[in-house]
């Protein structure tokens, strides 16, 4: 049975499943019915060095740059893998190929044109992020974001990070009212 994390909590993936090498990071959400304006939610990943910033633009994985140059992180897009139910977007990570100078990978979701459409995460429920073992399909850990985000238009769901030689997973659930721009700037990318 999969473990669940509360906001702020962390888990050692290496300890939970020492065989983990290739993982699927599944992100999902249920937009509540609104006035008809469509929600366009995009999952992305930021590969971060020890200083918490990207090394360059290739470290930003999103719908227009689906794969990291080293092949360690790959955004699968909207394809349903069939490995579980409810994932809206999936990002694959091959832990053994993540470059040695990358200390952390942040998994984020942004609302496209949130300002113009007057949308924010307060309107979105059922958000979650989970890690699946790609080889076995088993869910390793899950974080269900509580519905307390209000003005954020870009959310950091979780982080995969190195700690003392292990890979760990932290439930973040924090974001920015300033959308993708604020999020990317925070990671050292000037969009």
């Amino acid at each position, binding site marked *: 049975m999969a473990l669940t994390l509360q*906001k702020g*909590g*962390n888990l050692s993936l290496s300890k939970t499943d020492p065989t983990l090498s290739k993982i699927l990071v599944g992100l999902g959400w249920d937009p509540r019915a609104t006035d008809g304006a469509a929600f366009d939610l995009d999952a992305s990943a930021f590969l971060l060095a020890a200083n918490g910033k990207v090394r360059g633009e290739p470290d930003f994985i999103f719908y227009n740059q689906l794969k990291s140059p080293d092949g360690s992180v790959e955004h699968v897009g909207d394809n349903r893998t069939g490995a579980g139910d409810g994932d809206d977007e999936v990002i694959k990570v091959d832990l053994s190929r993540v470059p040695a100078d990358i200390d952390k990978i942040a998994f984020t979701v942004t609302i496209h044109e949130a300002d113009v459409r007057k949308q924010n995460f307060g309107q979105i429920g059922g958000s979650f992020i989970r890690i699946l073992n790609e080889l076995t399909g088993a869910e390793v850990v899950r974080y269900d974001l509580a519905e307390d985000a209000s003005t954020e238009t870009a959310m950091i769901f979780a982080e995969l990070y190195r700690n003392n030689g292990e890979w760990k997973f*932290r439930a973040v659930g*924090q974001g920015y009212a300033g959308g993708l721009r604020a999020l990317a700037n925070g990671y050292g990318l000037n969009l």
Partner: protein
Amino acid sequence: MAVSLSKGGNVSLSKEAPGLTEVVVGLGWDPRVTDGTEFDLDTSVFITGENGKVINDSSFIFYNNKTSADGSVEHLGDNRSGQGASDDEQVNVKLTGLAAEVKKLVFAVTIHEAEARRQNFGQVSNAYIRVVNKADGKELARYDLSEDASTETAMVFGELYRSGEEFKFKAVGQGFVGGLKPLAEAHGVSIG
């Protein structure tokens, strides 16, 4: 060499720092960059007697009571956001100035209004608490709050206690539910 408290156990100060006379308890964390209320972490010290309770109400050193009666314990000021490099809050402890009746100092860290703000240490970046030998600046012990106290909102970090002529530091690293008020009351402070 500093002992990381995530490994648990005691630190024998007689081995780490022979002849220790003064320590600084340092608390540090990164200011919040994401949206939401700031993270306001607070250090406190309980100066206790034989029974583990404070000698008197003024033996509870925190942001509203910064100096002990004998001047040996001094809180250098409340940092409400984590702004600044290195330690954001420091408490100075002159071991030689402590009265004979003082048997133990209990060091704690709490998140201000954690419950109302729905915050815990895991949400804060790079939060730590440490004990430093004032004489040479060497770190004697450190606890990584963000990593190892992630779902806690208050924690008893450790205890400095008399052992014969010297002081020993015992790593506690235990979370405490409820915040500063129940933590203080548990150590015998009457909160009006």
